[in-house]
């Protein structure tokens, strides 16, 4: 199994599994067709309706980090099949399919880099790999990345995108919730900030562990975030769910996240926040990104 492919910056790639031609992409929200060049320029936020398209892990790295700053950490840890799990398909077969599709050993990409000059360690979940499900490898790589951040003294930024724990590793998957929590303690011990970014969708055991014990929790607009999935809840209560339920904006209102931040503002938001939390001198270089629709002035 190869390490992650070198990620080519600013070269639009066809979304894996997409049947759209290379040139343009249909926005899943407003259904408008948008040139990939335009989409890339707006960081895969629909220029028509501001819908935040899901990002493959490599693209996310590109959106967040200073160009050329990424040094990959993950890639050496590979999944096994501890339970010899077999449903309608063998787990090992599911794994190799996902590995071929994404070019990664599992649903996680980690490394170091910088955001507007500020060094960070970054972990990005890859929803394209088996729905970003968390098994032993995801847990181990996130744990190692957090420990690495503590070791080299950088803040830790994690981008969550996951349907939850990976059933095919049963209780071992469940235990990753505790394991990652343990690893994140190394940052606390060093007084280093941990920021999570919840993207569409983040549910189940990921929401109920490392993703929500961050010092600061950001979320992308419209992202579905919750513990139980909407279908499970609907089955339990046998009534329809309220409008906007479990969306980022709903969670903000209910006090669960620190802010809903437009993707085009993530770098500025993180640089400003982490600069203060690490008590760095206020010498941040000027922003270089396209500005999002400006937030309402506080009143």
């Amino acid at each position: 199994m190869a390490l992650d492919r070198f990620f080519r910056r600013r070269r639009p790639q066809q979304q894996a599994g997409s049947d759209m031609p290379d040139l343009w992409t249909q926005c899943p929200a407003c259904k408008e067709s948008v040139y990939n060049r335009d989409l890339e320029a707006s960081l895969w936020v629909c220029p028509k309706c501001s819908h935040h398209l899901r990002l493959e892990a490599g693209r996310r790295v590109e959106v967040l980090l200073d160009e050329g700053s990424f040094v990959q950490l993950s890639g050496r840890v590979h999944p096994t099949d501890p339970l010899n799990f077999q449903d309608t398909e063998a787990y090992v077969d599911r794994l190799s399919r996902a590995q071929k599709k994404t070019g990664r050993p599992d649903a996680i990409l980690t490394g170091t880099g910088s955001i507007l000059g500020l060094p960070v360690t970054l972990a990005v979940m890859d929803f394209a790999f088996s729905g970003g499900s968390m098994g032993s490898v995801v847990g181990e790589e996130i744990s190692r990345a957090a420990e690495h951040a503590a070791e080299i003294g950088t803040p830790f930024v994690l981008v969550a995108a996951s349907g939850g724990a990976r059933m095919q590793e049963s209780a071992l998957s469940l235990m990753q919730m505790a394991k990652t929590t343990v690893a994140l303690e190394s940052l606390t011990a060093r007084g280093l900030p941990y920021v999570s970014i919840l993207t569409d969708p983040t549910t189940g055991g990921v929401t109920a562990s490392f993703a929500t014990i961050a010092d600061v929790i950001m979320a992308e607009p419209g992202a579905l975030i919750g513990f139980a999935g909407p279908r499970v809840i609907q089955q339990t209560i046998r009534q329809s769910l309220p409008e906007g339920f479990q969306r980022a904006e709903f969670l903000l209102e209910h006090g669960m996240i620190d802010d809903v931040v437009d993707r085009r503002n993530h770098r500025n938001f993180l640089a400003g926040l982490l600069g203060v939390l690490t008590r760095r001198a206020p010498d941040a270089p000027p922003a270089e990104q396209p500005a999002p629709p400006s937030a309402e002035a506080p009143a």
Partner: protein
Amino acid sequence: MTTPSTDLKATLKKLEARVHDLEVTARETGQNLDSTIHTLRAEVERLRTAPANGVMTRWERVQLARAPGRPTAHDYTERLVTDFTELHGDRNFADDHALIGGPGRWQGRPVMLLMQQKGRDTKSRVRRRFGMSNPEGYRKAMRLMDLADKFGLPVVCLIDTPGAYPGIEAEERGQAWAIAESIQRMVRLKVPAVCAVIGEGGSGGALAIGVGNRVLIQENAWYSVISPESCAAILWRDSAQAPKAAEALKLTAPDLLELGIVEEVIPEPVGGAHLDLDAAAAALGEVVSRHLDELSLLNEQELKAQRAARFRALGAFTES
């Protein structure tokens, strides 16, 4: 101390004697004990024809763990805990009845008890949401862990939940957050924590109070990332395939011991804990007490380090 009966014949004999006693009591006092007697007789019949424990399927164990007659946390604490003071509320929003706790003495040892409660009759089961707590349950648990740390009381957790409650209000009030924070709170405990799964160990809702220095499981309890039904519904697109899912998930006590997820399997009386509650309680009490005594030799730093190392090591992968 009673030891759990491991002999089918002895269990049957005990059960038959109890049926006989009940019949005598009913006759002499005029009480109507018919339903109790009926249940016990059915159990005797089931045992006479059932396979020995060793050859029970995983699905059969799941059913045993869920049976309405399965002892609840209260059944054990009534036998093992004295001076128990239930402390209520999360001091934020509500008192959750599915996850309860407070200080007490576990076979004489001062501890902070946390336990999931399914209820013992229809009314209390509804009140206790069948052991599925809302965020307030976990927030109460964290508050009690704060007290445990403050007063140096070891934490004993009795886990028995199908999972955290999947409701609209639970989501609105941060079910995921409460579970995540409770896991973190346990990681940070300065006191020993011994957790025992005594029925269902359903996913994050169980793990939230499952980050112990020791994790134990009763012989017929299960512990998994997902219930067999939900797993079957997703992977087989048919929840009726739950028995297959149960097999695949390897969620029984012996499986978990093999996977290194639990330290010890606590024996139950033949046929299940419900057949000899006193014996089941005695076994639970003894094993938990033994681990508490072992852990009492460690200091704060050692306890935190041991717990962290225990969970940090869990997972199966290869490295290139």
